[in-house]
């Protein structure tokens, strides 16, 4: 069966940074905790006045097209995946963001839809697109997310009380746009090897994003301590072990060079690496992170990491990369891929 590959990747990272010190200094109730020490996040990327979900998606898509052999007019499908869908001060339900993007980019023949799946939005878009390429329904497609999510951090600054506050986690987020074009793999050097996602909504009420009860902004209410129990974190390795076993493989034999976890915070990534090491009985690959600079850019976070490492030319040739989503819902899984020619200009 046909396989898919990452043909190109692009990003838009706003120039504005908001430091953890700045953010906590402006909190209504002075924090009794060292947020930077807990999360490892020194600064987070932050939307500039000109930015919204739409413009960040356009800027990321254009960046991706600059790194691609395709023009917008060549695209068979556009899938927009951001959590909020802001055009100006309005968050849209219809028409879909993907239609606005299609018109602006001039992707005349592309079919389109939006997906919404919390921080697993881009993984979801890629999962569907990979299936469509494998099934021969499309030849290529653009998965894009313009993630303007810092509004929940602003709400937390006003409303969060302490480390146990359900809005505490919102202080980690940053804004960014990311885009990926997939097409058919032509060799084994650039290919999505294995890609599976799982939703386990037993505890879906533990992380809810919606307008605040107390102010005119979105807020995120998450019981991180309950959501990130060791049992919950083990869903990823247990799921990957089972899926690999179906193909007669195991984690060690996959020989991953790098692993990219969701950029929620350094302690969270460390815990996942530990859980992975124990469950797989294998050393974990080198963990790639940009959270210190950009924070948790939600649906774009793994792709901002990949983009930054490619841009800095820090990945070795013929790399095998494992990406692990972790999103409200709870959604996890794994995307493993080989890359060789994927490059950022």
């Amino acid at each position, binding site marked *: 069966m046909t396989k898919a590959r990452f043909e190109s990747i692009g990003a838009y990272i706003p120039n504005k940074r908001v430091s953890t010190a700045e953010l906590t200094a402006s909190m209504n109730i002075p924090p009794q905790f060292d947020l930077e020490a807990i999360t490892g996040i020194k600064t987070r990327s932050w939307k500039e006045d000109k930015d919204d979900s739409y413009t960040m998606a356009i800027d990321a898509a254009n960046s991706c097209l600059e790194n691609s052999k395709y023009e917008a007019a060549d695209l068979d499908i556009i899938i927009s995946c951001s959590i909020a869908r802001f055009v100006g001060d309005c968050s849209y339900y219809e028409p879909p963001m993907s239609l606005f993007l299609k018109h602006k980019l001039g992707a005349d023949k592309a079919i*389109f*839809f939006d997906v*919404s799946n919390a921080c697993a939005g881009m993984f979801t878009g890629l999962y*569907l697109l990979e299936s469509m390429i494998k099934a021969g329904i499309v030849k290529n497609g653009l998965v894009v997310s313009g993630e303007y999510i810092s509004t929940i951090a602003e709400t937390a600054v006003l409303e969060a009380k302490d480390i146990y506050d359900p809005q505490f986690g919102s202080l980690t987020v940053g804004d960014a746009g990311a885009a990926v074009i997939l097409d058919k793999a032509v060799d084994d050097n650039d290919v999505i090897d294995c890609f599976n996602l799982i939703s*386990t*909504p037993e505890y879906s009420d533990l992380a809810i994003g919606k307008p605040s009860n107390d102010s005119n902004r979105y807020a995120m209410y998450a019981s991180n301590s309950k959501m990130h129990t060791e049992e919950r974190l083990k869903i990823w390795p247990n*799921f990957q072990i089972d899926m690999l076993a179906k193909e007669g493989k195991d984690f060690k034999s996959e020989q991953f060079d790098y692993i990219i976890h969701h950029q929620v915070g350094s302690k969270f990534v460390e815990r996942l690496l530990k859980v992975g090491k124990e469950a797989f009985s294998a050393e974990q690959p080198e963990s790639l992170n940009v959270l210190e600079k950009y924070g948790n850019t939600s649906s774009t976070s793994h792709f901002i990491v990949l983009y930054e490492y490619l841009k800095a030319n820090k990945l070795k040739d013929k790399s095998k990369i494992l990406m692990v989503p972790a999103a409200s819902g709870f959604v996890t899984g794994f995307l493993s891929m080989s890359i060789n020619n994927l490059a950022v200009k």
Partner: protein
Amino acid sequence: MGTIIKATGISTDNAIKSSNENAVAAGHQCIEAAGIDVNDIDLLINVGIYRDENMLEPAMAAFAQKGLGIKPDYIKSQPFNAAFSLDMMNSACGIINAIQTADAMFKSRQIKYALIVSGDAHPSNKDLESFPYATVGAAMLLEYTEDEKGFQNFSFKHSPTTEHSVRGYLDFNNLAEPAKERLTVDMPAQYKEKLLEFACESAEEYLTANNLDRQTVKLITPQAEEGFGHKIAQSVNVKDDAILDLYKEYGDAHSSALTMAYHLGAEKGLYNSNDNVLFVAAGAGLTSACATYTV
């Protein structure tokens, strides 16, 4: 080989004001009608647009998956017993995108059943005149068979600009109500007229391009206003005896409209084996989506 409808369900109870509850109620009815083991559902797509409390995350599909008891927890399940759920949004055309996506998943992955649910509601869960859509839910269970039946020839079309489109959004500049109960749906005066024109044009192009027999094909259409389906049928010269006028009773069921029309039509025995049923969706954009379903 094709993706076929195993069963459908709808929820039209006026007492239910929540989009999630309607999606789950329709899903229960659908699964019960199919008589399948809920653990055999591997994919759940919610195509509803307007959410309770303007919720951003998780996906509303997560609540539907939990509400329907579809493999909610991996640890407690058997290995490989995993499901994936997501929200897909494309106004009233999302149902066709979701069917095409499920078709791709059947062809490329080992999934047994895919469930598509929908439900729209005003975020306040109140009946408000400013909300132009019906608070109903629908569910469609799909499976893949080796027969030469099922959905084929998916086609999508959009107008050159969004000038005449309905626009639904949460406006953070408008402080009239708390944001979790606030919604603006701007429907231009000519929207429904333009939508009808666009749906007719799309159906006409599709019928011609796919060489469908206009004497025998049966139509499933949006119900944006009274007589909408009949007008489309007349415009494209297709018999309209299989079209149910649902607007008077239910209003505009939006993301649930096509599933609901199929469900009620099937109940009335309108579709026979080997019939070609043309699904025509049309909504914001303007956007249309067509697919042929061979029963």
